[in-house]
């Protein structure tokens, strides 16, 4: 029951904020909604017993990536409205319709298939309730997924170098 309340509240928030991100005309507001969206997602992670990911979500997404967006929004000092020019050939409506259609299809598949098969219920929460799985995750990351982990770190290094090179002013 509590989970249901949490889920539906968060779901509504997440979707609503998502829509707000996409629809808000002002970029800064959009960024703000995105942060809130991510925070809600983080809370959803906590609901899903993924505390570590929740914290990481906040730390990396909210504290890092979105700050970056905010910076860029502020650095991009536009003299005219960002979406002033519209190419007549763009197929925005078709895209909208198609995404809607895909969503409906996917939802249909999910509902239909879950309606037929016995829906898998969440396993019982661990007794301790509050003990998380951070250590377990750490073990997995540093043993079975060591190489992907290292690759990801190299990717981040490359991205860092690339970003610096790209953003640096030609002197």
């Amino acid at each position: 029951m509590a989970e249901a309340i949490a889920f539906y509240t968060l779901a509504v928030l997440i979707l609503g904020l998502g829509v707000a991100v996409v629809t808000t005309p002002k970029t800064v507001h959009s960024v703000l909604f995105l942060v809130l969206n991510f925070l809600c997602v983080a809370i959803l992670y906590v609901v899903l017993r993924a505390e570590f990911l929740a914290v990481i979500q906040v730390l990396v997404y909210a504290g890092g990536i979105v700050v970056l967006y905010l910076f860029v929004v502020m650095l991009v000092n536009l003299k005219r409205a960002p979406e002033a020019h519209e190419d007549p050939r763009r197929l925005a409506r078709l895209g909208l319709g198609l995404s809607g259609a895909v969503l409906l299809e996917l939802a249909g598949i999910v509902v239909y298939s879950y309606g037929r098969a016995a829906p898998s219920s969440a396993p019982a929460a661990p007794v301790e309730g509050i003990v998380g799985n951070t250590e377990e995750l750490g073990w997995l990351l540093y043993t079975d997924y060591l190489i992907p982990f290292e690759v990801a770190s190299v990717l981040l290094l490359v991205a860092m170098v690339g970003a610096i090179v790209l953003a640096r002013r030609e002197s």
Partner: protein
Amino acid sequence: MELIWLIPLLPGIGAALNGVFGVRYFSKQTAAAVACAAMGGALLLSIVAFVELLGAEHREHLVELAQWIPPIALETASGIGAFEAPWAFRLDPLSGMMILVVTGIGSLIHVYSVAYMDHEPRGGYVRFFCYLNLFCFFMLTLVLGSNLLVMFVGWEGVGLCSYLLIGFWYHKKSASDAGKKAFVVNRIGDFGFILGIFLVFFTFGTLDFRAVAEAAAGMPVEEGTFGVISLICLLLFIGAVGKSAQIPLYVWLPDAMEGPTPVSALIHAATMVTAGVYMVGRNAVLFTHAPEMMLIVAVIGALTALMAATIGLVQTDIKRVLAYSTVSQLGYMFLATGVGAFAAGAFHLMTHAFFKALLFLGSGSVIHAMNEEQDMRKMGNMKAYMPVTFATMGIGTLAIAGIPPFSGFFSKDEILYRTFLDNTWLWGLAVVTAGMTAFYMARLMFMTFYGEYRGPSWGAAGHADGGQEAHGGQGAHAHAWHGPHESPRLMTAPLQALAAGAVIAGFIGVPAALGGGNRIEHFLEPSFVAEAAHAEEGGHEEAHLSHAAELGLMGLSVLIALGGIALAHRLYVRRPDESERLAADFAGAHRVLTNKYYVDELYDATAVKGTMSSARGLWTVDRNVVDGAVNGTGWLTRASAWVSDVVDKYVVDGLVNLVGRICTEGSYAFRRAQTGLIQNYAVATLFGVFAFVTFYIAVRYFG
């Protein structure tokens, strides 16, 4: 004897020096000195080598310088053999005699040339000595070569030098034509020679003379048959015929007189033309194993001797008379070899070298004195002007006529004697020839040196007259002619030396009938027989007549010779008009002889014209048939190309253009898709997702 390789090499070095540096840097004196020094050195070495050879127990010495052709596997009659040829020189009695002849007479002629060619400008002078030295180099290589291939190098080399020297005055068309003629005619012979070499290798698996001789000695004598040895001999003899100017390839030699006189003396009298005889002698063992070929050789020799002598009877050009005389004498030598008297042939070769060189040089002296006049009809009474030349030439004439005790008598008489033993018919021809020889030589002497002076008067007028037949170099310098005169010392000295040789050379071959030991024959004997055969047949007694009969034959030939001289004296000294009457009486025969039996014309009409007309015929075939075929093919190609073109233009190009058109037209439609709007592309991607999901649903839930 170890240094015999230096004998050919010294003139070679001389030629190289004169050829590479001399033409540009040497003065006349230097060039002459180099050439003469080279020849002198070669002569000295030859003498030393010959003396050592005489003292040696085994009179054969082989010096192998280097590998020339490394062993190559080639098929022979007896399986796979190794074709190899070393640079090797062999000194044995025959080659020893030859090198003495070549270097000795060569040296004298070099000395003679120093004076004779004095009128030449420096470039030509040096060139002449270069050629002369080169010739000696090749001639000595030919003589000393221990195998057929080395000999062939010399053989071709002397051919080349002969060509160069005949055409020495190359601005004169007749001279260059004569050079080419000599070269081409020699090629015919060389063709046979090299085929013979191939066959020798194929048959015996080696080219070394000694090895070939040993191998051939082991084979049966081809009596009455014409086997492989006979074929080899035929081919080799063809080569010899070309080089030694025998029927039918003698035509080049008279024309070769276009060259300078020393050249005629050295190459076309003393040395090169005898190479054929030498080569046959070298392969004596082969020839003795082919009796049928021996007969052919003898017959051809006898016929050549007779024919050349008859032509010589009526020639008026002093050098041509000598040329035909040379051909005739070469015929004698082949006659000798043909009857198995190799030593006699070689003996005659040597004596002939002396007296014919003497005669040529003498004639050169006369020509020199007459300011390049060669026609005997314009000479006369020359003995008054040039006694030394007259005396020496007289000795030469007596020698060639076979008057004892001059050298020609001994050698010629030996040949006649051996021929008589073998074949009386041929002996008859040879005796007739001997008479003719005496006649035309005496005629030459009488026309030149006796009677009244018939030449042009000297002074300015004479110069123009004499200049007509003069060589190109003559007109180049303003040398005023002051009438006939004795030649300088440098020219007369060799004449005297040769005259001495012509007198005494015969004494090394005094026949037994005259109390001599015929030493030359015994000396040369090892060269003409295989060692095995030599040991085996050492005690073989040859058929011979009694001394009395032999003396009778000698007397007969001397008598005939004297008769010929007497007739000439009557016709050209006492009653000169009678000769003209005779010529008029026998106008037809005289014309035939004057025109050398029309052989040149015959060759021209057959060989040359035939070649030309067959070439023309082939050309016609080529134009009509081959070209027609080619053109037909071309036409066919063009026709098919036209068809292909049409197909290509309308079918293939149509397809290609259609594809292109489709692409072009299609691109007008499709290029609208490239809007540069990333989102449109993303929409396309999304459409893919949509299509995929739809398909999935259709298959999964409705399929």
